[in-house]
């Protein structure tokens, strides 16, 4: 009799255990599903809207899904550069020249803006972090374009995100514009496959960046001793967790990361640029005030143009070369259509 009950008990245990572990297994499958979906269904960045079709009849969606139609008089410029004015006006003119924020942000969109807020101990004058008014104005424009939610985030390497948001001055402008700051939650770094990668096949990426409808990349143009310059592609380092690893083969790994994140719009803040001592800066003598903002839906093109502000050729930067190889964008500044706008003070 006692044996019987023990056996019954063991059977009951077995059923319970299998139900429990089976349930967990199922649950974990459920967890993987959206992630694998994310990794295979690639285009996170909003594709260029069909209204931008090249009237010459060239195919707009190339195999690479990257190269935009070549510039013609009737289409938007490939790069817009605004110079000489307040940061807000520079951003507004540059984005307007590209067709306005409505081209990138649709009603109800969840927008992530990724400025460079690399440390928590510098104010914007030192040009280590993106200009707060540039970021604030982008938030405002996204909301005007009908965005449902606009969040601003970066994962600093010096200090925690919340103190960096505050000390950089960015939080104040973002909140005033009606946006939100996204405090970094370690849970949201998810192991993500990068299908097109040549080197960085897997990486822990902040999931909000992957799930957002629109990612707007807002680097500040500054010096960096290995990459030479921190621009749009380098700025994407701030959405991943393990950064020291990237330095091994930086150019290619940045291109790999860019192929996964694909920001819809890159706006390079060159209101102030940092000529030396990047990324942290700290000497005003290294800062040059250029009052310039560069915008493009092509991250490689935006970076290529920004490189010239420092007297460099686009191909001087390894990540631009890798980005070209992977077909992530263009660097032929001589042939692409560039609209140069003098905003005036």
């Amino acid at each position, binding site marked *: 009799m006692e044996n019987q009950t023990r056996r019954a008990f063991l059977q009951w245990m077995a059923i319970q255990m299998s139900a429990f572990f089976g349930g967990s297994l199922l*649950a*974990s499958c*459920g*967890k993987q599903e*959206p992630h694998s979906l994310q990794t295979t269904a690639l285009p996170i960045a909003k594709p260029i809207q069909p209204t931008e079709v090249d009237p010459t009849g060239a195919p707009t969606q190339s195999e690479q899904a990257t190269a935009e139609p070549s510039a013609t008089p009737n289409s938007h410029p490939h790069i817009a550069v605004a110079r000489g004015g307040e940061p807000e006006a520079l951003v507004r003119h540059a984005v307007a020249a590209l067709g306005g924020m409505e081209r990138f942000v649709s009603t109800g969109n969840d927008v992530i803006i990724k400025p460079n807020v690399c*440390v*928590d*101990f510098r*104010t914007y004058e030192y040009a280590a972090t993106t200009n707060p008014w540039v970021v604030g104005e982008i938030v405002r424009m996204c909301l005007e374009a009908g965005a449902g939610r606009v969040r601003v985030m970066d994962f600093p*390497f*010096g*200090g*925690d*995100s*919340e*103190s960096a948001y*505050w*000390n950089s*001055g960015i939080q*104040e402008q973002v909140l005033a514009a009606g946006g939100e700051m996204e*405090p*970094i*939650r*370690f*849970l*949201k770094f998810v192991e993500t496959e990068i299908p097109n990668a040549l080197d960085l096949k897997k990486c822990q990426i902040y999931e909000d960046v992957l799930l957002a409808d629109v990612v707007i990349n807002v680097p500040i143009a500054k010096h*960096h*001793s*290995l990459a030479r310059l921190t621009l749009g592609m380098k700025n994407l380092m701030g959405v991943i967790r393990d950064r*020291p*690893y990237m*330095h*091994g083969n*930086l150019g290619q790994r940045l291109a790999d990361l860019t192929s996964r994140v694909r920001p819809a719009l890159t706006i390079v803040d060159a209101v102030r640029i940092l000529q030396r*001592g*990047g*990324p*942290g*800066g*700290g*000497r005003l003598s290294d800062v040059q005030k250029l009052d310039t903002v560069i915008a493009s839906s092509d991250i490689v093109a935006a970076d290529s143009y920004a490189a010239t502000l420092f007297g460099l050729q686009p191909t001087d930067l390894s990540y631009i070369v890798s980005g070209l190889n992977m077909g992530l964008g263009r660097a032929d500044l001589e042939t692409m259509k560039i609209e140069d706008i003098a905003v005036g003070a």
Partner: protein
Amino acid sequence: MAPDSIKRSGGVSRPWTSLRKLIQALALLAFLVLFVVTRGETPGSTTNIFLRLDPLLALVNLLATKALVAGSAVALITVALTFLTGRSWCGWLCPLGTILDWIPLHRWKKGKWTPGEGWRGVKYALLLLTLFAALLGGLTLLIFDPLTILTRGLAVGVWPALDKLVTAAETALYQLPALRAPVLEVDALLRPLILPPTPGASRSAALFAGLLIGVVLLNIFAERFWCRYLCPLGALLGLMSKVALLRRRIEPGCVGCKLCTDTCPMGTINPAEDYASDPGECTMCLECLDDCPLGATTFTPVFSVDPLRAYDPGRRQVLITLGAALGGMALVRSVDAELQHPFALRPPGADPEEFYSQCVRCGQCMRACPTAALQPALTEAGIEGFWTPVLIPRIGYCDYGCNACGQVCPVEAIPPLPLELKQQQVIGRAKIDKNRCLPWAEEQDCIVCEEMCPLPEKAIELELVEVQLPTGETRILQRPVVIHDLCIGCGICEYKCPIAGEAAIRVYSSCSGGGGQGGGQGGGQGRRRGE
């Protein structure tokens, strides 16, 4: 003999006990809240108030440094309270005492061993040893102060364990899509104020929590074992209580029912002495006052010195502990600390040589440190520096934008420097191990240390060299070099160095060469927010 008719009045009306328990709970709650918000915007002079109320820390620091810290005057409140009402700190306010009251392990007691009355002398011996050692400049024994046990035990013992548990639970639950939103909401409540913004590292948490747990476990042998027999702060307050104004007295109406003897958590009511008690042991918990069915127990003003008990320290104990302190310090000091401790990296602004005799080992700075860079020294600072804070760069770096540790230090062993001054303090100097550094040893690209250096004029420069690869081709390589005089030893280079295991760049104590300028300028501010 207790007459049968006399019963404990338990549960009927115990006004004093109820009041005491309420105040105990509020004090413990206040302690925990202040402990948590030490990592936050609350001024350090508020969050460290319990430590500054501790007269043992203030006295020992005074004896060792021969200098008064203005903020320590708060301890006079406790001294005054003790001269008026005896060891009421222990019974009413001490957060560790309250925890010991709430975990009455003595009820499980199976064995027969009960510590004899002589054990009460241990705490006096510990107190005397602590005071004599302090006169000689040694503060190591403050690791046994109840508030340092609790603060340190929580900061680098219990909290890291809590962080591990919460992180594991969060990570597991986050796998379930339905739970993601609530898990994130809970995470937002916990981080960064209660737990570190990203799960923190720690070391030897078991050791620091272990002392705290050990103190609690001693409750098995006797109620409030720690407070009765071991606590050096209790001993100090006990000595003062010998002349306290308010003391327990037995009125003639006492019939010897022994209720008070049984109920006294300190076990100090002695039937053999007509139910008198030692004011040096009594924590003024007032259980006996509420219990006495005949109202024969009273607490009234007394102007006299209470007679010494057998376990109270006499001339012999004083001489023995003095000798032990002298011998102990001589043994500890027989090693030249400067030469032996290359990794005794002190918090910014602290004087590396004076620190041994200034730091009260409380662990408050370790709670405040947002990167968990400050950890109790195990071997880094020798026996004399045991459990003093040292920067362990592989665990965390000294954030260039943070000056929290100096703001919370209760004795200003870490001076409360404004951020601009703190950023100039030399903690140590970094050195590159060229046998391990990637560009030096393996001709690979890596500039992480240079990139991370937060100084306006970077203390790490990159040398351009042309190297020949095994394939025969040549290429330009950047190799990091530390500029010794610029480095402040914040350790972010060592923290971020991508080499596995020990970093290829390490910060060494600046004691031997140059040294950090100690000496504090007051007028500190909290962790900087904006401009």
